[in-house]
C-alpha cells in the first residue's frame, strides 16, 4: 500500500473543545478506498451471517452484528481517533490469541476426542441407526419414491414391488396397502401408478432426509429405503428410552444407562457403547497428567533434553551464524555478496523437505554420511548420536537465519565505535567483546528468545527426523530425542485415537513452562538494555 492511498493525516487528535470536528482533508482516493473496504466488511459480515442463521447460532450472530456495527460506527464517524488505531489490533488479538487460549482451556475440561465428539442426541441417533439390520429371511424390494401431491412438498410414499409375487404396494408412515393399477418395469420398479407422481432421482435427492427417515411399519419391523431404488425390511436392534435414560436392546432386553460423567451409555456389567458424547470432566485431564506414571516418570529427563535441544539449537545456530557474519563483515573479503547468497540457500529451502533428506542421509546402510566417511554408525539408533544428529540438522537449517539477522545488526553498529576503541588501544578481540557483542546482544536477544521458544516446541525437527527415537526397549512411549511436544502428541493421539481434551490439558502445562521461561528471559533482557542502551 503506498502513501498515495490517503492524504496526509491532518491531525492526530481532535481539537479539545470541538463538538463537530470539521470535515477532514481526505483525498478522493482515500475516500474511495475507505468506502470499498467498509463495503467489503459489510459484505463479508453478510456472507458470514448465513451459516450462523442456518445453524441458529444466535450468540455468534450477535457477536458478528455487534462487531460489524461497532467497526462501521468507529470508521464512519470522525471521532475516536485513538480507537481507530487500536480496534484492528485488539480484535485480532482477541481472535488469534485470546480466543484460541480460552478455547484450548475450555477443551481441557472436557472428554472431547474420538468417540466423544458430538452431543448426546447425536450419539443416540448414531446408536439407533447403526443397529438397524435387515430382518432375517425378509425380502428386498424394488423401490420407487412417489408422492400423492407436489413432487417438492407432497407427502412421500414408497411404491415397492415384491420380488416374488410382483405385487405392488404403497407404503407411508401409516403402513402398507396393495395397489393394482401400476406399471412395472423389467427391473421391478414401478414407473407409473394412478394417483401417484413418481419422483425422479433429482427430485428425490432434494428430499433425502425425509426419504431416509421414512419407515413403513410392517409386522416384525419396518420397510426402509436403501438408496432410491431398493427397500428392505429392517428392524432397529437398539432403541433409546427416555424414561430410564438408557438404550435398550430390542431382542435381549439388555440396557445401557447414560452416565453423564463419562459421556457414554454403560451397562450394569461395565460394557460401554462405543458412541459417546462430549461432557465436562472437570480437572480429571489435569490430574491424569500429574498422576500418570508413564508421564511423570520420564518427564524430568524429557524436560532436561528439551531445554538442551532448544538451547543447543538456538546457541549453535547463533554462534555459527554470528561467526560467518563477522567474517563476511570485513571489507577485506572479496565477493561478499556471492558468499552471502550461497549461505542463505539452506534458509531458502523448505525445512520440511530438508528434514526428510537429512533423515535419509543419517541412514546406517544407505546414508550419505556413513558412506562418505566410511562409518557404520546407527545414528538414529543410539541416544547420543541421535541427539547429535538432530542438533546438527538444526544447526544447518538455522544458521542462515542467525547469519542474516547478525549481518543486519552489525551494519547498524556505527563503525566509529570500533575505530574509537582501536584508537584507545583495544585489540580486535577486546573491541568485539566490549563494543560489538554487547550492542549486538541488545538487538538480537529478543530474537534469540523467540528462537528459543520456537525450538522448545519444534515439533517438525523431531517428528520428521527421529520421531522421538531411539526408544528404550521397555518403554515405547518416550524416546531419547522426544521433546515435550512430540511426547505429548504421542500420548494424546498415539494410543486410542485422538483425545483432544487430554491434549489440551497437556498443552496448557507446556504453555506454562514456555511462558515462565520467556518471562524470565525478557526480564533479563530489559535489565541488559538498561545497562547498555
Amino acid at each position: 500500500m503506498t502513501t498515495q492511498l490517503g492524504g496526509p493525516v491532518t491531525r492526530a487528535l481532535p481539537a479539545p473543545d470541538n463538538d463537530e470536528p470539521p470535515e477532514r482533508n481526505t483525498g478522493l482516493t482515500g475516500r474511495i478506498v475507505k468506502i470499498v473496504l467498509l463495503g467489503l466488511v459489510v459484505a463479508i459480515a453478510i456472507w458470514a451471517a448465513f451459516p450462523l442463521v442456518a445453524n441458529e447460532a444466535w450468540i455468534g450472530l450477535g457477536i458478528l452484528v455487534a462487531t460489524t456495527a461497532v467497526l462501521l460506527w468507529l470508521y464512519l464517524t470522525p471521532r475516536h481517533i485513538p480507537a481507530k488505531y487500536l480496534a484492528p489490533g485488539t480484535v485480532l488479538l482477541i481472535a488469534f490469541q485470546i480466543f484460541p487460549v480460552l478455547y484450548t482451556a475450555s477443551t481441557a475440561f472436557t472428554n472431547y476426542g474420538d468417540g466423544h465428539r458430538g452431543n448426546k442426541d447425536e450419539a443416540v441417533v448414531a446408536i439407533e441407526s447403526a443397529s438397524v439390520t435387515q430382518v432375517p429371511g425378509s425380502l428386498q424390494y424394488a423401490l420407487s419414491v412417489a408422492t400423492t401431491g407436489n413432487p417438492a412438498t407432497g407427502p412421500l410414499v414408497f411404491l415397492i414391488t415384491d420380488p416374488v409375487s410382483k405385487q405392488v404396494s404403497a407404503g407411508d408412515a401409516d403402513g402398507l396397502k396393495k395397489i393394482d393399477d401400476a406399471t412395472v418395469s423389467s427391473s421391478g420398479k414401478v414407473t407409473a401408478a394412478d394417483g401417484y407422481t413418481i419422483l425422479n432421482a433429482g427430485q428425490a435427492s432434494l428430499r433425502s432426509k425425509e426419504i431416509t427417515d421414512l419407515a413403513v411399519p410392517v409386522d416384525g419391523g419396518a420397510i426402509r429405503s436403501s438408496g432410491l431404488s431398493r427397500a428392505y425390511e429392517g428392524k432397529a436392534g437398539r432403541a433409546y428410552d427416555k424414561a430410564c435414560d438408557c438404550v435398550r436392546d430390542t431382542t435381549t432386553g439388555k440396557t445401557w444407562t447414560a452416565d453423564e460423567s463419562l459421556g457414554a451409555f454403560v451397562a450394569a456389567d461395565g460394557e460401554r457403547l462405543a458412541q459417546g458424547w462430549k461432557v465436562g470432566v472437570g480437572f480429571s485431564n489435569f490430574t491424569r497428567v500429574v498422576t500418570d506414571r508413564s508421564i511423570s516418570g520420564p518427564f524430568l529427563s524429557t524436560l532436561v533434553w528439551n531445554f538442551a535441544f532448544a538451547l543447543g539449537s538456538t546457541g549453535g545456530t547463533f554462534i555459527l551464524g554470528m561467526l560467518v557474519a563477522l567474517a563476511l563483515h570485513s571489507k577485506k573479503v572479496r565477493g561478499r555478496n556471492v558468499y552471502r547468497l550461497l549461505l542463505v540457500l539452506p534458509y531458502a529451502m523448505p525445512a520440511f523437505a530438508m528434514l526428510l533428506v537429512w533423515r535419509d542421509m543419517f541412514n546406517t546402510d544407505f546414508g550419505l554420511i556413513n558412506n562418505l566417511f566410511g562409518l557404520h554408525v546407527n545414528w538414529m539408533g543410539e541416544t547420543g548420536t541421535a541427539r547429535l544428529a538432530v542438533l546438527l540438522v538444526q544447526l544447518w537449517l538455522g544458521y542462515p537465519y542467525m547469519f542474516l539477522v547478525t549481518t543486519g545488526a552489525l551494519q547498524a553498529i556505527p563503525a566509529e565505535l570500533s575505530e574509537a576503541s582501536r584508537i584507545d588501544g583495544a585489540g580486535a578481540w577486546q573491541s568485539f567483546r566490549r563494543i560489538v557483542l554487547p550492542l549486538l546482544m541488545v538487538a538480537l536477544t529478543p530474537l534469540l528468545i523467540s528462537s528459543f521458544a520456537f525450538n522448545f516446541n519444534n515439533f517438525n525437527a523431531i517428528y520428521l527426523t527421529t520421531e522421538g527415537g531411539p526408544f528404550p526397549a521397555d518403554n515405547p512411549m518416550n524416546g531419547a530425542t522426544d521433546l515435550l511436544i512430540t511426547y505429548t502428541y504421542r500420548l494424546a493421539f498415539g494410543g486410542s485415537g485422538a483425545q483432544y481434551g487430554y491434549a489440551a490439558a497437556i498443552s496448557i502445562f507446556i504453555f506454562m513452562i514456555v511462558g515462565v521461561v520467556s518471562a524470565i528471559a525478557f526480564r533479563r533482557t530489559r535489565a541488559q538494555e538498561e545497562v547498555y542502551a
Partner: protein
Amino acid sequence: MRLRAMGVVAAMTIPLLAAGCGGSKNDTATTDNPSAKAATGELVIWADDKRAAALKPFADKFGTENGVTVKIQAISKDQQTTFVTASQQGSGPDVMVGAHDWIGNLVQNGAIDPVQLSADQKAGIAENALKAVTFNGQTYGVPYATENIALIRNTELAPEAPATIEDLVSAGQKLKTEKKASEILSLQVGQTGDAYHLYPLYASAGGYLFGTSANGDYNAKDLGVGNPASVAAFKKIATLGEKGSGALKRSITSDNSISTFTGKKSAFLISGPWAITDIKKAGIKYDITPVPAFAGGKPATPFLGVQTFYVASKGKNKALAQEFVTNYVTTPDLAVALYNAEPRPPALTAAFDQVKGSDPDLAKWQDAGKNAIPLPAIPEMAAIWDPFGKAEAAIIGGADPAKTIEAAGKTISGSIK
C-alpha cells in the same frame, strides 16, 4: 491515513473470525445456498487424489443418468481425520472412499451408516472383502479393491521361490557372498518398526494381535501382544535381526525398501501392489509369491486391506449416497476404472474376472492373499501400531525379545483401558 486504511483491511477479517468463533461453538454447516441447488440434488464424494481422478467420469455419468450434480473432492492427506472432523461440523461429504480399518473409529464417532446389500450384491463381492467391512454384524460400506502384501522376487537373481523363510535367508546370504546383492531381504522396518509389514512373519512364528470371539469378530479383551506366544514369535524374528542373520534391518525404511529392490541391492522384497509400478519402471523381471513361513511354523498370513465406499451419517443427501454406494459402486465398470487408476485387485468378482486376463499379477496377489486376515477394524487397533512397531524395531536391533514385547503389551493394554 495509510494506517487507517490498513486498519480497515484488518477489520474486514473480523466478521469472518466472528463467524468462525460462532462455528466452533455450534455445529456449522457449509454455506450452502438453497436457491442455487433448488433445481437438482447434489452428491459430494471425497477420495484421495488418485481415486478422485478415476471416479470423475463415473460420477459425471451417475449425475447425468439421475439428473443430479456429483462433486468429487480430492483429499490428499489424513483422509480419516479430515472426514471425522468435517462430518462432525456438518461440512463433510455424502460418500467417503477409504480403507476398511477406519470402520471402528468412524462408527464410534457416528460418522458412517451401515448399508443394506441384497443377497445378489453380497454374492458378487469377494468373501474376505465383505467380511472385512462387517463390523458388529453390520455391513459398513461397499468394498471395491483389496490389497495384501506378498513376496516379490527378482527372478534373475533368485529364479526359485523360497519355500520357507530359512530358504529365503540362505538364498539371500548366498547372493550376498557372491556380491550379487548387498541385502538379504528388503522388508521395511525403520527406527520405529512397521507392524503391517512384519505381521506375516509374526503370525507364522505363532503370534497374534487380538483373539477372535465366537462370531468371528475381533475381541479387544484378548490382547495377544505381550503374551508368551508373542514372546516366542519375537524370539524367532530376532534370529532374522541385526544380531542374527541380518535379513531384517532398521536401515530399511518405508522410503527405501522399494528402491533397494529396484536398485538390485536385494533379490527379495516384501511389499504390496503399490510397489509394482516402480518395479516395472525399473525393468526388473519379477514374480509374486506368498510370503514364506518359518520352517514348521504357521502360515505367514498377511493382513488384508479393503478399499471401501462409505455412506456418511451426517451427509446432506443420504438417500442419494445410499443409492450411489449400494446400487452403483456394486457394478463392475467402476471397479475396473479404479483398478486402472491403481492396480489393486478388484473386490467385485465380476470386475476381477474382467481384468485378470490382461494382468497376470492379479491372480498371484490373490493367491498370496488367500489366507489373509482382514486388518482389525476395531478402534482398539489404533493402540497397537505404535508400541508394536517400536518393539519390533528394538528387537530387530538386538533388544531382549521378552522384556521388550511385554513392555509393549503393557503400554497397549494401558491405552485400551
